[in-house]
């Protein structure tokens, strides 16, 4: 009797406590989730709740020296200003000095950057050439073991620092009196000033160098010199909160410019669909469009969208060492390139959210010109069929059905199914070769690629970034999955690097790209677009650059 009553009493106690706690809980705490925005007045001010940047999960790193993933680098881009920065507001992207006033080089190997006077970090310390030198030593170091330290490779002595055989990058000299930073490269590279616009080259205050473990800098408040700053540390899996930096020197916008918003609350979500549902439920000011809802989201009259082109390509590589390679199979490769219905892929798989490519390099990279692909990016099933017939008539045969390689579980299943169908329609047998996503690229690099799914996201808007990695024979066993080796192309790229005149240099890169496309070692499928929406009546001046960074310093919240 007593024991039975005890169990009921226990349950009753729990329920009672729950009710009491609920009653005592009271109102929603306004710090954190579900906060309602204060009433901003006019242009400046307002607290933006962002649900788009981290819609797919928490980044590993937000320290610009460590952040290899775009979403994490976005934070670095807001907290830090580097030597140079691209201005995308005009017709053509233009590289401008940010912390650097000017830069010059005679031979493309030795660069002298002159740093502006009076720049400060948000803790009041000065931004000096040594701020850059020490930051770069840190970023390239084996101690930090950054995933993106390969971006320092063009600088002389950087690789030694990564290997741990040196503490300082030999090629970098800082003169704090003359306010100059001298950088010596491993090879002539006239695009180098564009390379240093990447967040990995951000300056750091002395506070960053005082930590015994450099990787822990991002676990506490990071001090920077950008339009925003942190007031509180990163709350893992919950949010990253930035507030306006009133001591910002204005970046490329000029002295005196300040960010408009009071703060940006980057909420971290675990699941893209949930993050978007949260946006739809009115709990945030920005949303990242999930797959399949692009048309619906961009068609919503209450929402503005940032869906301009991004510097990213989705393409397939043809392994030139496989059965598809060689001059005798050129017609076959051309047939494959022309026989793929890119529009169908875009409509079916991407809900029309991507752009059809006309080459490898997309608009937004200085030097881009339309039509690099020629006819080879335009769908023409009849012509493709003719090419296949001609190829067969010339004696062309396949040892085995064409293998279409891709990484499974990553959204490519439908794409390869369409491609397989396209190939079958022109009389080519093809089979799907899906691989474990964790190992896919490693296997493709080792030569398993035949017609393999690939892609590239530009680190900085420079033709060299993609073309060297994809086309150059030095990148075979690396990112050159097609194992493409053309001495002319190698020469063009290396000559381009040492060409001072922008126009000539860009032409050389274009020629290299055109040649590789003519040899059909690459089949561009589509270019990426942005996927962000926001409530039109609330958010304004929301611009995403082709590098996929949002310029939060310009965003305003209407009243």
């Amino acid at each position, binding site marked *: *009797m007593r*024991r*039975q009553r005890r169990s009921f009493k226990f*349950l009753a106690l*729990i*329920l009672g406590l*729950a009710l009491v*706690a609920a009653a*005592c*809980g009271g109102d*929603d*705490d306004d710090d*954190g*989730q*579900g906060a309602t925005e204060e009433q901003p007045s006019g242009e400046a001010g307002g607290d933006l709740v962002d649900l788009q940047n981290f819609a797919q999960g928490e980044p*590993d*790193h937000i320290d610009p020296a460590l952040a*290899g993933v775009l979403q994490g680098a976005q934070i670095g881009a807001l907290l830090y200003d580097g030597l140079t920065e691209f201005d995308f507001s005009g017709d053509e992207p233009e590289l401008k000095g940010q912390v650097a006033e000017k830069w010059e080089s005679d031979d493309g190997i030795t660069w002298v950057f002159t740093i502006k006077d009076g720049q400060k970090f948000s803790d009041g310390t000065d931004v000096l050439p040594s701020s850059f030198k020490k930051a770069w030593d840190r970023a390239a*170091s*084996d101690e930090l*073991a*950054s*995933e993106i*330290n*390969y971006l320092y*490779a063009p600088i002389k002595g950087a*690789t030694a620092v*990564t*290997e*741990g055989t040196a503490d300082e990058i030999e090629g970098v000299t800082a003169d704090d009196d003359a306010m100059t930073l001298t950088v010596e490269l491993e090879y002539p590279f006239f695009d180098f000033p564009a390379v240093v616009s990447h967040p990995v080259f951000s300056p750091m205050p002395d506070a960053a160098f005082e930590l015994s473990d450099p*990787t822990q800098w991002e*676990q506490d408040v990071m001090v920077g010199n950008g339009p925003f700053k942190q007031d509180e540390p990163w709350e*893992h*899996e*919950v949010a990253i909160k930035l507030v306006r930096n009133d001591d910002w020197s204005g970046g490329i916008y000029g002295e005196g410019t300040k960010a408009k918003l009071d703060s940006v609350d980057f909420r*971290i*979500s*675990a*699941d893209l*669909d*949930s*993050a978007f*549902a*949260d946006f*739809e*439920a*009115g*709990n945030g000011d920005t949303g990242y469009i999930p797959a399949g809802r692009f048309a619906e989201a961009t068609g919503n009259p209450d929402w503005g969208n940032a869906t301009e082109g991004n510097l990213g390509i989705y393409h397939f590589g043809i392994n030139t060492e496989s059965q598809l390679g060689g001059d005798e199979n050129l017609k076959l490769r051309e047939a494959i390139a022309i026989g793929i219905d890119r529009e169908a892929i875009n409509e079916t798989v991407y809900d029309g959210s991507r752009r059809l490519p006309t080459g490898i390099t997309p608009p937004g990279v200085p030097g881009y010109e339309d039509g690099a692909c020629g006819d080879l990016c335009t769908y023409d099933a009849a012509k493709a069929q003719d090419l296949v017939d001609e190829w067969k008539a010339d004696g062309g045969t396949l040892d085995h059905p064409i293998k279409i390689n891709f990484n499974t579980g990553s959204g490519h299943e439908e794409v390869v199914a369409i491609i397989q169908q396209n190939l079958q329609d022109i009389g080519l047998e093809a089979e799907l070769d899906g691989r*474990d996503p*964790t*190992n*896919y*690229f490693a296997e493709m690099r080792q030569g398993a690629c035949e017609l393999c799914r690939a*892609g*590239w*996201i530009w680190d900085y808007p420079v033709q060299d970034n993609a073309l060297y990695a994809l086309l150059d024979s030095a*990148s075979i*066993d*690396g*990112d050159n999955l097609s194992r493409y080796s053309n001495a002319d192309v190698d020469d063009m790229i290396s000559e381009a690097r040492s060409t001072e005149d922008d126009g000539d240099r860009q032409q050389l890169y274009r020629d290299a790209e055109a040649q590789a496309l003519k040899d059909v070692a690459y089949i561009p499928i589509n270019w990426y677009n942005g996927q962000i929406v926001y409530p039109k009546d609330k958010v304004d001046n929301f611009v995403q650059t082709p590098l996929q960074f949002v310029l939060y310093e310009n965003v305003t919240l209407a009243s």
Partner: protein
Amino acid sequence: MTGYVIRRLLLVIPVVWGALTILFILFFIVPGDPVELMAGASGRAVPDATRQAIEQQFGLDDPIIVQYGNFWKRTLTGDLGTSYASRRPVADILKETFPNSLRLAIWAIVIETVVGISVGVLSAIRRYSLADNVTTVITALAASIPVFVLGFIFQQVFGVFPNEQGWPEWARLPVQGTPEHWNFFLFPSDWQYLILPMIVLASVGTALVARMTRTTMLEVSRADYMRTARAKGVKERQVVLRHGLRNALIPVVTLIGLDLANLIGAAIITETVFNWRGMGRQIATSIFRRDAPVVLGLTLVLVVAYVLINLLVDLSYGFFDPRVRIGKEKS
């Protein structure tokens, strides 16, 4: 009894050792290179110098046996290691995720127990009535609708739809998020965040508990002592609850206890859909990244929790059935 408890507690050691060793080996067998996955974001090739630096940091270039030895050396001194992906101490990650998983699991169990047992008893008493049939259908639905479908439906119904209709704040529930302020460990100030995940997580378990309670109650109702109790003139309510339910509960308690142990670590989908900062989701993400220290460290805690909860379940039998005296051997 004490001897029994101690013996059971000592069992934790081989279980933990076995589980972690198997996991450790799996990390080496299963394809996927953590350096690749870290540095090769977007499939980028990792240059040798970068790879070397990262491998040295984490001792990934040592032979397996050395890594295994190092792992135990640091674990036995209480150092759970550092995450490869984020470079954070695993202990910090554990501190942030374990309490939240425990809280959500406990609340789900509370629902399972209260709602599940009540519904089960009611169905058993009023067998074949309308109530019984309705609950049969609902429990079947709750058990078979995938958790993420249920989660998304709730998000739409309680979060998105009310916003589109312009309903007031109090008529909505949050779509995602974890409460930040907890009182007495279990009671959040921002309790709205708890409601939907708790219900969704409890859905399958509640259905199972209800069905099982109903079944065991019906079984028990056929027993002689039930007839005797009624013949003695004991009130029907006492017969059902004190004589019937008490005995029927043993298998149900096992189910609930194991479910508690299970829910702490396996609530991946609920935690992901509702952005609940829990262990299941953390482990799943870390497995994809081949982030061994995080997986091993969190699994260690889960295994210990599982064994302890099992022990508590076994010990509770004595409470329900006095004939069961745990630990007393027959002399």
